[in-house]
């Protein structure tokens, strides 16, 4: 039964909603319930393989790998939310929405039909719109959510249009194609359809030039949700793109690959260059996550085993280091009341372990060995070189040099700026929340270091 994880999560989400409506006294337990159901779903991954609902959904080693990433991501985000003071009420619906979004992600990577993929994307989108605007009393939160919603609705329309063209060209909406489609009379229609569908994927995976909603939405959402959005739906969308590339596109089609290569380069470059100017930690990490999506897209270019596994490995390293960086940012902000980069000033002198952890996560994001981010970057660059995309690899490495500049700007604040006291506007973190966040940081840091020095378990797991 390949949809067991989805079913478990849906049941969990319904339980949480019931608690929200009927048993408000159990609010405090919701986080544990959400975590338990996610954990159960994680255990259920890979219990079956094959297809479900005819051939609309299908599970393979690749989708299982992505399912694990998605569920791990949602578990981490749920634990991070324990330290989130801002969502005191409606915990039940908060976690229920998170679980629904996760269900959408899981369905998206298993979908073998564009209509079902569309439904999955909508499930993710609608849940995330609400989560982004969860702090409804804060105007900027509403602004971010609204922008996200408008752009998301727009991209959904484009996707539907693309799917209708696809149907017109092939007479079906499933991921399959006649071998000679490129040369046939419907070839142009077919490629136009795929391009439109990619545009809508691009919105979800925050690929340039469809990324404009990202900084505002990421800044205004509660931090655990920001971390969640920057990792989980993005990886799910990339997983879906791998499926489409494998199943619905004639192998190595030059036009689409070139378009993808250019988009990947644009995504990295614009993301990194925009990040340089940011002074808000969440916005900076938002732009950094755009750039990271660009690196991962390189794996799509060469439709090879190496390319696919490189995305999976990069995805896993990204999960560890990006959640780590966001957890550190959340920790800093709740200690000092602000996400402004200046709240990092002199952190190494006050909280050396946290400053060191933050630095290591940032260095890992920049791809400096021996951290796990380097393994991911190495494999992605390898796939580019192997697939004769050397110029893309050159753009990518130049980008990782640029990225060091702004990642190190945070380290610079933490180590080089020597202020004894930082203006603490509202030390809002309760003791328990502090321990939780530190625990999350510690676990992610151990993963980042261990898998960076000894990546064998990870590489064996993805059957590289």
């Amino acid at each position, binding site marked *: 039964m390949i949809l067991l994880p989805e079913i478990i999560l849906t049941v969990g989400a319904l339980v949480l909603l019931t608690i929200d409506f009927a048993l408000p006294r159990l609010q405090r337990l919701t986080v544990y319930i959400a975590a338990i159901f996610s954990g159960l779903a994680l255990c259920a991954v890979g219990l079956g393989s094959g297809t479900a609902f005819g051939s609309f959904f299908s599970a393979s080693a690749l989708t299982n790998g992505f399912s694990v990433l998605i569920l791990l991501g949602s578990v981490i985000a749920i634990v991070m939310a324990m330290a989130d003071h801002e969502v005191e009420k409606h915990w039940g619906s908060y976690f229920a929405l998170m679980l629904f979004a996760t269900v959408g992600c899981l369905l998206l990577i298993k979908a073998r039909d564009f209509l079902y993929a569309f439904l999955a994307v909508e499930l993710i989108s609608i849940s995330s719109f609400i989560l982004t605007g969860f702090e409804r009393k804060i105007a900027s939160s509403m602004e971010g959510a609204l922008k996200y919603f408008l752009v998301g609705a727009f991209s959904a329309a484009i996707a539907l249009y693309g799917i209708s063209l696809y149907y017109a060209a092939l007479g079906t909406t499933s991921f399959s194609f006649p071998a000679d489609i490129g040369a046939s009379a419907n070839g142009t229609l077919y490629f136009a359809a795929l391009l439109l569908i990619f545009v809508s994927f691009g919105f979800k995976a925050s690929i340039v030039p469809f990324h404009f909603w990202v900084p505002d939405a990421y800044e205004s959402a509660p931090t655990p949700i920001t971390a969640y959005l920057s990792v989980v739906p993005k990886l799910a969308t990339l997983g879906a793109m791998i499926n489409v590339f494998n199943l619905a596109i004639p192998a190595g089609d030059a036009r689409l690959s070139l378009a993808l290569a250019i988009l990947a380069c644009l995504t990295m470059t614009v993301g990194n260059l925009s990040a340089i100017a940011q002074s808000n930690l969440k916005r900076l990490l938002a732009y950094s996550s755009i750039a990271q999506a660009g690196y991962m897209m390189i794996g799509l270019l060469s439709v090879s085993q190496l390319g696919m596994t490189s995305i999976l490995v990069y995805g896993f390293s990204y999960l560890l280091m990006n959640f780590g960086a966001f957890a550190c940012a959340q920790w800093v902000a709740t200690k000092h009341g602000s996400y402004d980069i200046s709240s990092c000033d002199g952190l190494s002198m006050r909280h050396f372990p946290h400053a060191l952890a933050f630095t290591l996560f940032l260095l890992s994001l920049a791809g400096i060995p021996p951290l796990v981010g380097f393994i991911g970057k190495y494999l992605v*660059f*390898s796939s580019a*070189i192997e697939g004769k995309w*050397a110029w893309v690899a050159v753009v990518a490495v130049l980008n990782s040099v640029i990225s060091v500049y702004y990642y190190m700007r945070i380290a*610079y604040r933490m180590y080089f700026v020597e202020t004894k006291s930082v203006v603490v506007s509202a030390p809002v973190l309760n003791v328990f929340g502090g321990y939780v966040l530190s625990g999350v940081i510690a676990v992610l840091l151990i993963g980042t270091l261990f898998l960076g020095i000894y990546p064998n378990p990870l590489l064996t797991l993805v059957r590289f």
Partner: protein
Amino acid sequence: MPLLSLLTFLPLLGALIILAMPKEKTKTIQTVGLLVSGLSLLVSVVVLFGYDKNLAGMQYMEDFLWIGNLNVHYLLGIDGLSLPLVVLTTLLTFLALIASMGINHRVKEYWFWFLVLEVGMLGVFEALDFFLFYVFWELTLVPMYFLIGVWGGPKKEYAATKFFLYTLFGSVFMLLAIIALYFGSEPHTFNMLELTAGRDQLLKLGMTFQWLVFIGFYLGFAIKIPLFPFHTWLPLAHVEAPTAVSVILAGVLLKMGGYGLLRVNFPMFPEVTKIFIYPLVIIAFINIVYGALVAMAQKDMKRMVAYSSVNHMGYVVLGMCSLSAAGFNGAVLQMVNHGIITGALFLLVGVVYDRAHTRDIDAFGGLASKVPLYAGIMTLASMASLGLPGLSGFISEFLCFLGAFPVWKVWTIMSVAGVLVTAAFFLRMIQKVFLGPLNEKWANLTDMTTRELCAVVPLCVLMVVLGLYPRLGLDIMNQTMTMLAVLVKGGT
């Protein structure tokens, strides 16, 4: 007994111990740091004595499968090219740490980063697997960034960032070249020795491939050396870094570039090398003369020494361009000597800066009567640096010229001008700082302390010993260099 791993990872052990200690216990931290780097030095000396000079190939090899899925090995080994540099690294780090006892700001972090830096540097010279090599190579970046950025001079943040970005820019191209080599070799391997042995197979991939990979490595190494026009990060980083870090920067980090050219570019791509030395010899000439002229124009002693490094590394590359055993011997010996001499010079400049808080050459005068010991040692180091016969710098520069002359007559003759300029600015510095009437402002200047002497004197002894009996170093290198010359010249 895996001696190489032992001497490489002892400092890491020390760094982790220091990380676990409370930061108030500065004395204990310093003791632990000195102990592990001293032990590392001791082990490297043991390796030095156990090394068989009559063999050209790798010795003390260690090989474990590290990342099986990618065929990455933990492969260490040393030969006549890397052994002198390994010993230089352990020695200079130990002495630089002695000189760092005076640092009393954020002591724990300083010693932690310094020891991590030592691990990276040693690993670069020992690793024979490209993946491992790259990991060690990058491992030197982060500690250096913090060492310059926290404990440096007025423009430390800018200098640290520029250093980091500049070197990273070079090394990412090296990474691409490494990946290309991996996929170019059959079966895919990161093993440097196998890649060198199987270079004919790489030749089949076409000259474009050869050139691109060569240039990728060259960018990484040339920035490190630093060769014109990639030298602009050096003066800034050297001047802003604290004394001990400048010693390591000039003494060891620059050598990583020269080492890389000799280990990777020359033997693996002899066909490209034979063409590439035409521009390279001109670059070496520019480094020599331009570096010397700019050094002459400096008023700041530390800047002067920094630019003299650009000049001295030019000799190294000039020697390499000969593609002969004599030239290679000279180049490696010059790297070692430059590490010793410039290390001493940076330490000495640091000594006077600690007291006077200025390094302006014009601000002093007549110090010889006030601090005779300091003046004597400084003069000795300057003489060694300008190539006075009898001191170590002379032999290696002479060998570089000797090797290069038969091949590059015009460029070698023109490069000799660099020696004259070097002599000019060192003599001018000695004259302005130590001779003439005493500048009364410095009437209370004290001479060198025991700790400062401990750091500098071993280097001075080496200058004299290697100057009088250079075979001490040359015998170790000679076999390997001869083989290297055959490898480069005899390439099909």
